[in-house]
């Protein structure tokens, strides 16, 4: 009985902490301005990135060598994006406002992915510049 109670409470708090953590990652990324090159590669215009661009951005992140330390966050946001998809399937048809909220959340996930891609591109440019200067 106690185990069931602990499991139930832990599952609910896990959900809440995870959603808040994902929000904090997305909110933190909003303070980051994407570079021109990052925008061009990610196909972004303005400050809004559409939610449906998320998967493509993830594919670009996967082919870009990482500077270290953000792979766990990429997975965390992917999981949050997947959770949003599940919520849309389950509850999106009940209330149109839910669908609007989900889309804004998915757009936040996509912007965070664009920021991560931009950071990786910047890191790789620095690496390449170093390599070229070492060859000279």
């Amino acid at each position, binding site marked *: 009985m106690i185990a069931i109670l602990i499991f139930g*409470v*832990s599952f609910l*708090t*896990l959900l809440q*902490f995870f959603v808040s*953590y994902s929000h904090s990652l997305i909110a933190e990324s909003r303070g980051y301005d994407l570079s021109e090159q990052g925008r061009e590669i990610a196909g972004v215009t303005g400050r809004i990135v559409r939610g449906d661009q998320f998967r493509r951005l993830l594919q670009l992140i996967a082919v870009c060598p990482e500077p*270290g*330390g953000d792979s766990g966050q990429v997975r965390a946001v992917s999981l949050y994006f997947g959770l949003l998809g599940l919520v849309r399937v389950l509850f999106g048809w009940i209330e149109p406002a839910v669908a609007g909220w989900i889309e*804004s959340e998915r757009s936040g996930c996509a912007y965070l992915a664009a920021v991560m891609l931009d950071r990786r591109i910047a890191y790789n440019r620095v690496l390449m510049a170093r390599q070229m200067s070492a060859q000279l």
Partner: protein
Amino acid sequence: MLGPVDYSLLLADLLVEVFCVVCLLRQKALSQHFTIVLYLCASIAIGIGRYGIISAAGFTSNAYLYFYFYSDALLTISLYFVLMSLYAKVFSEMGISKFVRGGAMLLLAGTAGISYHMVATSTDKLITHFVVELSQNLYFIGVLLTYLLWGAMMKMRENRTRLMQLVLTMGVYFSAFAGSYALGNMYPNLVLWRYVCHLMVMWLPLSWAYTFTKVRDDTRMATARVLASNR
């Protein structure tokens, strides 16, 4: 028996923790976040110890069983110290750090006492049951303490991004482990959790490494943006 997947995950856990310690030292955060470094070093030492016992006595041996659960309880207690230091940071301006430390110590002793009582009154008084019960209860108390801290931070409009992310990662970790221990109690032969546990162990060092390398100490964030949607 352990397979190549288990050994790779064991090694990955260790590497991720070493990476996080290096990140913390490079960011010169040792004095500021001493308890986190202490936890990571303890976890690295225990990881090496576990590997040593597996090689010497085997994965299914009693020695490994005892070592695993007792070291896990020790790690959870060191996570309490991390949590206490976060409490101290959040309430630093109110000057109630001493009360927080005292309260957390009392709670820790109380949890150990209650766990011992629960096992002592059961029919099979095995000491291993005590430590499993203790771990489950410690993780659950950790969930409650983190939830309390998060609630206080929201109430006080705490806006230090680093602190917020550290508390939230602790919350995810404690909740995931408390839930998995409870599930383990309900279904003791669930093999899947052996792998999930390894992945959950990597969560804390990975997210801490991200927080310390990507989020500057002076970054601030409106509390409402974490609670509400990100428009």
